[in-house]
């Protein structure tokens, strides 16, 4: 996320906030290491509902997708959406409605929801990408608030305050009533979504996006249709967020107004910052931490949840902008650099510098 406008109250060329070292570290890491981490992550994901209450594990999956979708936009396209709950939430409602009214297998309903979110993202994205930086954030916030009010008023469809109840959850003849089994049924979808995000980033499209983020004028000068790329990224991000939201609706079998509330939009940004902007996997990490933390807090009798969430956010933004993943990678890179230099020194036969 770099500065958009030239005029920033006298600041010098702003420090690029995205931890470059994160991707550098990941790129520099030998292939075998990446495979090891991947395998470890998969193994962990397969084990998760055995160690955690399954409903919480399902939540982690959904929020992981949500966070990755926001990071895709923020870390790789340089656009902070402060209203992404509009897509998470509208997909949740659409998924629920499709399931309630047609009884299709849940992946179909979730797909429908995600597509709906993507469709919603077209006009919003079209209008929003004309602005950048803080303007963009505020426009997305405004549209998300509109979505909230629409969901609130359209009671016949969304149930308003009472929410959308009794969303059925079916897949062929499988009994998915227990969240434990649903977790495993949902996992492939989540993995597919994460893989899609990774593919987008490591594709020519992703590279152009990064170029646009770093220097839009140059990208435009090179002939790239900047707005089109941004809108595409926005729609893709909305689709992923919608995937997460649809699964969330399925996981809870219930959709309430919370899914389109601006605090949800704020929460996912916190998750992304905590995990590490521009790292993708940081979002997964952040989601796991935040969901687990909130679950623990609600049973602990500690009532000031906002204090904790806000505190984490303030600390992260002030001191810890690289996030967890970013810091870890940075650390790794530094260690790697030190080892390399050590090796070079040994090779030169210990000649003093």
């Amino acid at each position, binding site marked *: 996320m770099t500065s958009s406008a030239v005029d920033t*109250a006298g600041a010098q060329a702003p420090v690029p906030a995205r931890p470059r070292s994160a991707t550098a570290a990941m790129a520099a890491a030998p292939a075998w290491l990446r495979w090891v981490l991947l395998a470890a992550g998969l193994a962990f994901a397969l084990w998760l509902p055995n160690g955690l209450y399954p409903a919480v594990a399902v939540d982690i999956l959904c929020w992981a997708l949500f966070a990755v979708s926001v990071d895709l936009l923020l870390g790789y396209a340089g656009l902070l959406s402060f209203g992404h709950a509009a897509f998470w939430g509208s997909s949740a409602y659409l998924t629920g409605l499709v399931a309630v009214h047609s009884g299709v297998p849940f992946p179909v309903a979730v797909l429908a929801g995600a597509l709906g979110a993507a469709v919603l993202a077209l006009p919003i994205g079209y209008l929003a990408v004309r602005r950048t930086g803080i303007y963009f954030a505020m426009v997305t916030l405004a549209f998300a*608030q509109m979505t909230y009010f629409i969901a609130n008023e359209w009671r016949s469809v969304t149930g308003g305050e009472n929410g959308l109840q009794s969303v059925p959850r079916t897949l062929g003849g499988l009994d998915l009533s227990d969240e434990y089994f649903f977790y495993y049924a949902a996992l492939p979808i989540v993995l597919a979504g994460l893989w899609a995000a990774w593919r987008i980033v490591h594709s020519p499209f992703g590279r152009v996006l990064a170029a646009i983020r770093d220097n839009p004028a140059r990208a435009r000068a090179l002939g790239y249709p900047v707005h089109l790329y941004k809108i595409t990224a926005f729609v893709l991000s909305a689709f992923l967020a919608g995937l997460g939201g649809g699964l969330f609706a399925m996981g809870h079998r219930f959709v309430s107004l919370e899914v389109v509330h601006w605090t949800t939009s704020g929460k996912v940004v916190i998750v992304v910052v905590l995990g590490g902007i521009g790292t993708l996997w940081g979002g997964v990490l952040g989601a796991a931490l935040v969901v687990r933390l909130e679950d623990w807090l609600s049973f602990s009798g500690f009532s000031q*949840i906002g204090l904790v969430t806000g505190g984490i956010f303030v600390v992260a933004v002030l001191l810890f902008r690289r996030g967890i993943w970013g810091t870890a990678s940075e650390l790794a890179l530094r260690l790697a650099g030190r080892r390399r230099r050590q090796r070079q020194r040994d090779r030169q036969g210990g000649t003093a510098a």
Partner: protein
Amino acid sequence: MVNFLQQTFNGLVGGGFYALLALGLAVIFGMLRVVNFAHGAFYMLGAFGTYVLLTEAGLPFWWALVLVPLALGLLGIVLERAFIHRLSRLDPLYNFLLTFGLTLILQDLVKARYTVSSVSYPQPAELAGEVPLGLFDFPAYRVFVFGVAIAACAGVWWLLTRTRVGMVVRAATERPELTRALGIDVGRWVTPVFGFGVALAGLAGVLAAPMRAVNPLMGADLIIVVFAVVVIGGLGSIFGSVTAGFLIGLVQAWTEAFRAPALLTQTLVFLVMAVVLLWRPTGLFGREETVA
């Protein structure tokens, strides 16, 4: 007809709150390029400060009117020095996120002490009753609020156009590089201006306390509407923010009064904002900024 006039005046009173809050936001944004998400929380602190002054120190409303904005201004200065300043070199979105985190913290701190139930603040006795306003009578306190809002806006306008400080602030807002090139130390005005913006939010809070329920969440949803107002008026344009504030207050009162569908009333401000952003991206009265 009487009802229409009553509703119109009432809309102006509501608009006065928007204008005061938008004014503070615009001033802060103009000078720091920071969109202060915590502005709603400061408004809430202003209302609670008024309540605390009465219940703990026995000081009535008139004291609060002076002391609370001052206290909040000080708080603003402290927060700016401690936190916001550190991120001033970065993308302004970081400060936006920081103020969002601060909002959550401030709200919970007040919640911890006062719970979420509203506390009640009495109207100042000198302003109870109604005053005749031509065709109808209107609560004196609301007329007072309107008067203070106008006075505050006028005062800020005077400060900005007739004093040296104001000139510096305006120059720094419109042409920071040039101002620096002319040898003026813009940096030293950043903190006081932030404090001043926060003080304005506090003032709005003081005015709100006798009129509205005082609870920790009173600023939460309000702030998003004020954002929209500021964007409509033009981020950085003082005049635009104030005008948009009163305008939105009026239009909201009219749509509510004349039975427009509920959805329209609630989303009105955002619809207007969307249209304005499309048509005049920098707001009705904003200035051109380079857009990528």
